[in-house]
């Protein structure tokens, strides 16, 4: 039996949730899909680092530098442990977008280098016209635009797996879209707009069957459910710290050791080198190879405190809590006249982000009424514009709860929707 979350107790750890918005309304934060709030433990850990051990890491021989390095690497180990990984396979970036670009640039960089020195790179990353890259129609822009850019630079072609009307991947297309020309398959594990949880194991298996590399965007899964990155069957997995109670400014890329090892550098400079001459340089082993410059040390420390906090609650409990809340949200929304859910309506293989449109009302106007009730939701295309087009809507309103939300928050959101309908007479 998983332990239920004591939401009232959890809320006490988040000072921001005590504030009011607009005309003194208590804040109801239902926008955790964009970014989560941060518990005191995270703020305290960052501050303690700055107040006691701040220094350059991997560089100094003084005590502070030793402590900072220890803090940074201990944090890496803790965060790796949280997703069942080895510390040496975990790269720190500034956000998931950088992580996905790191993956994408392995291809465009290797391709450009191969043109001048074919033996300098691993041929798995060298693309040419005729090669294809596969994504899905529910990708966040962060897992779409970088691959468009790779295509523009290498001549490869972008393909995608389409969606069914209820917001699932059209799995019937997998074998035709992912074929012998495919060199990389990059898919989201849990859609930030639809809430859909995809069968990444199936997609990764198909990718490997045709000799392609597999990338998973786990931005919306790792914060919300237990994920063992090694068990996903992927070669690379990207996610962000700020959506899982961590500070802004830190992201993660996990990679299978052998794949990371074969990848050329992305951002280059100090700390990622082995030797440097004016004429040429050699590079450090992963993860350092991908961490050029002064890293996000305080943010790594903060994120380690965040995973400790989540571990304390238990990711099983987080998932169960959200699952319950998702069921309730779907039920309440479906009971409203004129409200259409964009994404799966059955609470199976779906996360807690629920998007919807209201007949006759633009999402911006719906959001405004929720805001007026103190409810923070996101309105817009949620960085998944092609997904909106697929469903024939310019934008949606999205409710995305987390560990500090409960049914009463959903109730107030529903009141806001009804108030908007009433006001606009729809």
């Amino acid at each position, binding site marked *: 039996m998983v332990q239920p979350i004591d939401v009232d107790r959890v809320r006490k750890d988040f000072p921001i949730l005590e504030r009011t918005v607009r*005309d003194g309304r208590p804040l109801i934060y239902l926008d955790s899909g964009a970014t989560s709030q941060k518990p005191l433990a995270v703020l305290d850990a960052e501050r303690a680092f700055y107040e006691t051990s701040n220094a350059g890491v991997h560089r100094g021989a003084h005590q502070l530098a030793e402590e900072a390095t220890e803090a940074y690497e201990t944090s890496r180990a803790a965060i790796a442990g949280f997703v069942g990984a080895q510390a040496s396979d975990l790269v720190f970036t500034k956000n998931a977008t950088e992580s996905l670009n790191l993956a994408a640039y392995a291809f465009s960089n290797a391709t450009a280098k191969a043109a001048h020195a074919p033996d300098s790179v691993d041929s798995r990353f060298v693309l040419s016209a005729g090669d294809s890259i596969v994504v899905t129609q529910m990708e966040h822009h962060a897992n779409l635009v970088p691959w468009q850019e790779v295509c523009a630079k290498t001549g490869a072609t972008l393909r995608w797996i389409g969606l069914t009307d209820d917001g699932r991947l059209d799995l019937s297309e997998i074998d035709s879209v992912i074929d012998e020309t495919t060199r990389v398959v990059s898919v989201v594990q849990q859609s930030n707009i639809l809430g859909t949880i995809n069968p990444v194991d199936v997609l990764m298996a198909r990718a490997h069957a045709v000799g392609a590399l597999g990338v998973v965007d786990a931005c919306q899964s790792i914060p919300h459910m237990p994920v063992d990155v090694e068990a996903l069957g992927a070669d690379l997995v990207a996610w962000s710290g700020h959506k899982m109670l961590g500070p802004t400014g830190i992201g993660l890329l996990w990679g299978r050791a052998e794949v990371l090892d074969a990848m050329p550098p992305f951002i280059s400079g100090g700390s990622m080198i082995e030797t440097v001459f004016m004429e040429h340089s050699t590079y450090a082993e992963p993860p350092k190879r991908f961490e050029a410059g002064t890293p996000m040390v305080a943010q790594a420390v903060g994120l380690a405190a965040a995973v400790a906090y989540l571990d304390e609650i238990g990711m099983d409990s987080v998932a169960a809590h959200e699952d319950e809340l998702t069921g309730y949200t779907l039920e309440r929304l479906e009971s409203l006249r004129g409200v259409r859910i964009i994404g799966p309506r059955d609470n199976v293989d779906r996360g807690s982000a629920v998007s919807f449109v209201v007949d006759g009302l633009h*999402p*911006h*106007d719906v959001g*405004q009424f929720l805001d007026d009730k103190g409810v923070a939701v996101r309105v817009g295309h949620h960085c998944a514009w092609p997904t*909106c087009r697929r469903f024939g809507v*310019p934008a949606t309103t999205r409710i995305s709860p987390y560990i500090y939300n409960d049914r009463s928050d959903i109730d107030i959101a529903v009141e806001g929707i009804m108030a908007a309908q009433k006001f606009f007479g729809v």
Partner: protein
Amino acid sequence: MNLESLYQDIILDHYKNPRGRALLSEPAGESHQVNPTCGDEVTVQVALDAAGNVVVGYEGQGCSISQASASVMSELVAGLAPAQGDEIRRAFVELMHTKGAAEPDEDVLGDGVAFVGVAKYPARIKCALLPWMALQDAEAKAGIGSDQEGTSAP
């Protein structure tokens, strides 16, 4: 409740009954503007009539604020000399940067005064400005008006 200052009746009326919403048959300049945050879109077209006054056409999709703003805009500037339209546009842009504290001049802004409450909501200011930016850009493309300061929207 604050929302009534945002969604004034004039705005709701323009939203539900947009004035002059149509494209031109022979535009001299056209601009398509999007709010990349939310996907609101508006296309504004301009031309000059025989008397040298502005003819405006538009189309769009988006929230009440952006669509009402387009309607108000077309009503305000159509038929005026480009310089007069510019003046109104500037007054509207200025109004949007007053944080809701201004007392807008109805003689200049007509129904545009109803947008004073929008200026209190930073995320909605862009919605209100969208058609006006498109107007400015369309005029610049058509070579209309004294005002060439911006050929691209901010």
